């Protein structure tokens, strides 16, 4: 697939760059927008950003590799983010994540986000999702799910497999 940024997005980003006294400062916003649009940040997106902002690709790569939320890999259609921070950890988020991983055939001890080979699921352990009262919580794509049980997890998996 060839890389092409829609002209409306490009125009939007060009305008955005003018908000900053130094073009380089717009790098983060560019990357956010490109990840939003493409789902992850490809080499082409980095090169495009560098070209747009008068930088070298390595300058942009430094930034992308610093922030864990910028993704270099394509995500699964269903993105499961399990909270790992204290309240959720006490409420069994570790077991919940393990459950997801085992059901999907992923390594329950891996650190980084993992995607199933069929590209349907990505499971990830993340820091606090700011809903500690409803621990354990899961961010399913853009929806925050409170008090997630293993039964609910199975439902999520069943639904995701059908997509």
């Amino acid at each position: 697939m060839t890389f092409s940024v829609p002209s409306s997005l490009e125009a939007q980003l060009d305008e955005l760059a003018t908000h900053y006294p130094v073009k380089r400062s717009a790098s983060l916003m560019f990357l956010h927008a490109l990840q939003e649009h493409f789902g992850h940040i490809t080499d082409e997106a980095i090169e495009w950003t560098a070209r747009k902002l008068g930088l070298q690709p390595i300058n942009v790569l430094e930034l992308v590799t610093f922030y864990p939320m910028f993704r270099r890999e394509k995500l699964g259609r269903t993105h499961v983010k399990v909270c790992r921070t204290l309240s959720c950890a006490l409420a069994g988020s570790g077991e919940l994540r393990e459950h997801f991983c085992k059901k999907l055939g992923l390594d329950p001890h891996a650190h980084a986000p993992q995607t199933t080979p069929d590209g349907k699921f990505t499971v990830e352990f993340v820091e606090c999702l700011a809903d500690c009262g409803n621990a354990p919580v899961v961010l399913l794509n853009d929806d925050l799910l409170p008090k997630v049980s293993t039964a609910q997890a199975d439902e999520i998996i069943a639904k995701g497999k059908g997509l």
Partner: protein
Amino acid sequence: MSNAATTAPAPAAPPPVEKIRIKVDGRDVEVPKLLPNWQGKLEPTTMLQAIQIAGGEVPHYCYHPKLPVAGNCRMCLVEFGTPMIGPDRKPVLNEDGSPKIAKSVLPYEPSTPRGAIACATPISPGMELYPNSPATKQMREAVLESLLINHPLDCPICDQAGECKLQEYSVQHGQATSRFVEAKVHKPKAVDLGPRIVLDDERCVLCTRCIRFSKDIAGDDALGIVNRGSYNTIAAWKEGAFDNNYTLNTVDLCPVGALTSKDFRFKMRVWFLKETKSVCTSCGTGCNITVGSREGAIHRYEPRENDAVNGPWMCDAGRLNYKWVAREDRLKDVLIRGAKAGWNTALKEISAKLAAAPQGSVALIASARQTTEELFLLGKLARKLGALTDSVPRLGEGDRLLVNVDKNPNMNGAWLTGVAAVPAAGGRLGLIAEAIRSGQVRTLIVFGEDVTKCGIGTDLLAKLETLIVSDILPSATTATATYLLPGCAHAEKRGTFVNAKGRVQKFMKAVEPKGDARAEWEFLHELVHNVTGQNGFSTIEGLFNQMAAEVPAFSGLEWAKLGDTGVTVQI
């Protein structure tokens, strides 16, 4: 880069330098308030510079006098104090009337000294620096311990061993044993950073010297740090993407064994290398170099600092241009009409031929790759014989940093000794060709050039009665020579080059010549004596001094006065 004119009239007295009085380890020292920074601009003097002026040393990794200050390695931490100021804004005095010093301490832990990084902290009047205090030593020990935590300690197989700051400082400032019992962080090994550079990320101390050099000196913003955090590594955009003509300087700059030269890596332990001061011959800039050789073989060139010429850098092309010296097909024998002969026979025959040659029947083509002394002797010979002379131009591409458009290392030497045509070298080559064709020139002397490539083809060479050639490597010209005299590479003899800016620089002998090859100036001296009857000097020092007396541009120069970094003359 600044060009220090040494023979120009004495410069006007510099304006008075404002000084600051400080104390270094209890000794009073006066240092300039401002000193040049990496770009030569005046900036407030730093603690590190002040301690160096006081005769001390501050260990450091990331600091380099010719690079922007980064202050990230923390190795140069120094304990210090400043004069105490009372509530009345007046200095607080001790009982003996000396100013009371407030040592820098942690804000909420006044018993713990707080050091400052000497590379980036300016000094102030009355400041006291303690580069050798127990607190400073403790800070160094701690920083070094931290840097060694994830270091692989693979010195036995590391190319940097022997010239590694991590090794040196560990001996001087480190602890004897490691307290680290946890697992080390593993990072990429043998990363192909560029066509000439290999990176070992585990050895890297992340000083960023290579990044700053590439961005600010070489003008190629190719390197960066990715995965910041525990796994941070130096990287280029793509493997192999670090490719400019100055990448190998990062190997010199790297204080540890992280960046290694593909050319030199695993070839030779550095402590076996004999280091010889020399000059690069790849262009008219004449970068000062150190030749590293062992048992007659050259293993590497490294830049040698000379602020009047190359600073501490050199280009990759020049640095790697040493292999031809050891080429298998080097000319090793004296040949008379293709048959092996001795130097004595050859020189005797050549001398007799030249002495008997009628005026104007000899032409001479020299090379601006020869030393000034050789060109001077050839000039003498040519004048005696009334010979047409010239040298071969060698123009190419230059750049804004070091590479000169003139690929001859000694073009100015050829002009100043009167051998090369003015204003453009090579301007008389056509005339020489014509004179051979018309039969006026019966004898041609060629040094270090393949004339078949500059308008004097083998057909013309065949018309000659005598073709006397001296060269280092075989060519179409050497193949047709009546007399072939094997010469020496610059690393096999001594001499001087005059660079494109008129810097007269001497170079020393690193390795022995191959086979029967002899330094050109040695046999030229003999030849000139035989033909002209003039006696000369049989040492390079004497020869240079004689040349200085006879060539106006060099008047007042002496071999000994050239020093290691040369002298600039008017060109």
